[in-house]
């Protein structure tokens, strides 16, 4: 236990601010964990709640830096913006799916599709933003992210021209807005 304590200490440095940062992210992780515990458990037996507390503490203590590695201020805002992003995304997904359904059932499907790979660059910086964009791309019309690196370069496999042309487009803007980044 002391080992990982030391590690943690090394990682975040010894300054007080860093400590509070990590403590804060620990706290948030703990809350998240405990909430999911309650959702999972569905029981309010004191023993189970205690166990949930201990488990959440355990996970949060050891792995808080996984969920929120760098606790930036304004994370809450990002969170709410993200929530508002989700319905749009789902709608996009549904559109994508109908498109695919159309393709899948079309008798001359092979004439409609024209797979190719496109590459584009974005100015997204944070990992989480890149990942969100990448996964959104994967989930939406006829495109799958092949690679996305930390410089914001995306390679995307598109099933037809139409889908390819739509990129990066609106989605990038939306994602950038969610994470407060410049396009």
């Amino acid at each position, binding site marked *: 236990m002391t080992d990982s304590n030391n590690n943690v200490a090394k990682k975040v440095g010894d300054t007080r601010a860093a400590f509070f940062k990590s403590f804060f992210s620990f706290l948030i992780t703990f809350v998240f964990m405990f909430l*999911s515990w*309650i*959702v*999972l458990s*569905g029981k309010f037996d004191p023993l189970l709640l205690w166990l949930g507390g201990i488990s959440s503490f355990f996970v949060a203590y050891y792995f808080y830096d996984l969920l929120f590695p760098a606790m930036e201020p304004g994370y809450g805002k990002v969170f709410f913006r993200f929530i508002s992003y989700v319905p749009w995304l*789902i709608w996009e*997904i*549904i559109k*994508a*799916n109908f498109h*695919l*359904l159309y*393709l*899948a*059932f079309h008798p001359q*499907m*092979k004439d409609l*599709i*024209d*797979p*190719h*790979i496109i590459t584009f660059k974005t100015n997204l910086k944070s990992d989480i933003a890149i990942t969100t964009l*990448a*996964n*959104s791309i*994967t*989930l939406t019309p*006829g495109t*799958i*992210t*092949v*690679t996305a690196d930390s410089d914001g370069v995306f*390679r995307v*496999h598109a*099933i037809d021209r139409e889908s390819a042309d739509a990129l990066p487009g609106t989605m990038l803007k939306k994602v950038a807005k969610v994470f407060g980044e410049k396009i």
Partner: protein
Amino acid sequence: MDIIVILFLVIGLFFFLGGAVGIIRMPDFYTRLHPAGKLDTLGIFAMVTGLSLYNLQHFSFEALLLSAKMFLIVFFVFLSSPTATHSIVDAGMRAGLRHWTKKKRRG
């Protein structure tokens, strides 16, 4: 209520059907991934929604939590499915699998 549930389930099934047909019909590996990755995700989404609605028929706090738990599956699938798809397609690229193109077929 039942009708909504049935509707959701049938839609979900329809998505799955599309996915399945797509998997069979698409010409190459990359194109197959499209239906597999997306239609199934949405299929799960629709079906779980239907099922959790059905679960809420006899409303209680516990039933609500249970439905929430079901939505955890959706949450999870929405995170993992594109990642898995991406991972597979990346694997295909790295492994050097060439993708099907129209030109190739014509030529």
